[in-house]
């Protein structure tokens, strides 16, 4: 990807990310997040990670954010007006973010693998094709294309099928929790102990 596009999408991601925090109106915040996710998806795709890029759009910018907007609508959250900005917290948080960025920049400056792109990598896909057991992946690798969705699925279902089911259990626990915590209370006043 030409570096112009990289800077464009990086700027979109960052600016809208700032927008999420700064915006007073929750809907504006949520929409900023959608834009930020879209920029991030473009960055993933520029790294040849097509599958994650697509997921970023479908799941995060699509499903998760729509859910967010629905909740904002249902709860009828108004813009947080008249709220005083706590400058001490803001400065502290900013300082922490700057420090962390500097730290990561220092580590990355020393991390030569980080400068490589997939184009620099001599991917011997033909040789890789002889190793995998799944036919469709094999064919695509032999053709020289990288089927990242299929490889990810292969890893997920071949190496971690059990953890995948534990994730199912996790979602069940989460769902049960939501039901328990949001069950409508039949009358009665909220009590404070």
């Amino acid at each position, binding site marked *: 990807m030409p570096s112009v596009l990289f800077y464009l999408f990086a700027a979109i991601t960052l600016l809208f990310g700032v927008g999420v925090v700064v915006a007073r109106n929750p809907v504006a915040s949520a929409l900023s997040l959608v834009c930020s996710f879209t920029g991030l998806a473009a960055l993933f795709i520029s790294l040849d990670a097509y599958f994650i890029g697509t997921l970023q759009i479908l799941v995060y910018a699509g499903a998760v954010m729509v859910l967010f907007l629905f909740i904002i609508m249902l709860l009828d959250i108004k813009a947080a007006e008249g709220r005083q900005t706590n400058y001490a917290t803001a400065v502290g948080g900013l300082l922490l973010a700057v420090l962390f960025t500097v*730290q*990561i920049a*220092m*580590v990355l400056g*020393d*991390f*030569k*693998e980080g400068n490589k792109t997939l184009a620099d990598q001599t991917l011997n896909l033909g040789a890789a094709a002889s190793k995998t057991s799944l036919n469709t992946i094999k064919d695509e690798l032999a053709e020289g294309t990288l089927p990242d969705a299929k490889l990810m699925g292969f890893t997920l279902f071949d*190496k*971690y099928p*059990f*953890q995948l089911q*534990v*994730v199912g*259990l*996790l979602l*069940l*626990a*989460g769902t*049960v*929790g939501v039901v*328990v*915590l949001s*069950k409508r*209370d*039949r*009358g*009665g*006043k*909220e*009590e*404070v*102990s």
Partner: protein
Amino acid sequence: MMSSFSIEIFLAVVGVLLIALDAFATELNRKVVPWAAIGATGLALILMLTRSADIPAWITPFYATDSLAVFYKVFALVTTLIVLIIALEGDFITAYFSSSEGVKTRIGEFYALPLIVCAGMMWMASAKDLVALFVPLELVTVSFYVLVAFTRRSAMSLEAGVKYLILGALSTGVLVFGIAWVYGATGSLSFEGIAAAASKPTTNAMALMLGAALLLAGLGFKVGAAPFQIWIPDVYQGAPTPVTAFLSVGSKAAGFVVLTRAVQAFTGDGSQIATQVGNALLSAAALTILLGSLPAIFQTNVKRLMAYSSISHAGFMVLALACGATGTVAFYMGTYLPATLLGFLLLVVLRTQGVGDELKDLAGLSKRSPLLAFALAVAFASMAGLPLTAGFMGKLLVFMAAISKAHYGVVALAVVGAAAGFYYYFRPILTAYSPVEGESTKLQVSPVARVTIAVLIVGVVAVGVYPKLLQSVLK
């Protein structure tokens, strides 16, 4: 003869079935689900002690069955069993605060979720791989978000739930970021692979260090090690007491077993980052002991006092971990279990009798119930580390490990922390045995609570007098 893996699946399945049972069999006596949960956990514990060693071959890449894993699995089961008994003891309080239907509210989920949590903690004990670490860790954490906020009519419980949710989600983010860096630096997700890569000169030490730091920060949050301990007092005080007991013993132990495995991977033979990780752990240990012990002196609420105490205990365990004494960490955890659960069980029993959890509420307890006052004395004496109690052996082994590695500065700080402990742990005991004017009603203790209290007291004293009992399990 079942393998430990089948036992975990059994627990999770029973947990799910009990949730369904509670939802659909609405005419059922509401005590059926708690007793079924207690029965299932007890059965799982028996099956675990008579388990068969062979596990299916396909799980071996991510599933460890070494003595550390087995110890923490049994630990998780015992904790869950006692926590369920504590929860049953305080059943009507939890029910009363969970909806306006009051004490008749059906709260089956409150007993079914701990089974799922227990299965998660047992999977964590076996994690050999960062994926196998992360997924059950999240299962445990998400279930705890629910349990902490369960008594939603209490504003404190809701506040605790929100605090735990936000900080927990943040720590999960840090943990995942750390996992990504570790994977990027080493190209491996398994602890074995990470340890091998850490000793290779071609591995970028800076990147690995950043990953290790983030990973340790994320896990430090789960075990409540400074500087990630800030959430503990508020969450422990606000959560329903049985959940506080579960958090402070079960969740902490599960955090420590994965922390142990991660530290082992980072500080293996010839690791490039062993010194740095060791130093980070040492400073975290010193800070944790101080930030746990010193504020504890000023507490007037017993639950909050125990929250600070759990921070200070975590400091001692991190110290043992920094010295590479993984067996000592497990042993300390084993001494921490009976004393802490005994303390929380007493708080629940007292609460059911209308006695609050402020320090002044304990006044005259020895007159109202000699058994409860004695149990309180044993629990807090063990937490302080009085000789002949389990806590003494735990602290002694930690000090020995630290002295053998010549970390005298941290040992001095730990001694200060332990000395402060003698002050703040003995205040509740003295209050309980202080004479009070006027008549006072006797307190009733249910047979189940009596038996549990007796078992826990015997546990504290037995390990204190004959520590080999626990050490032989660790071998």
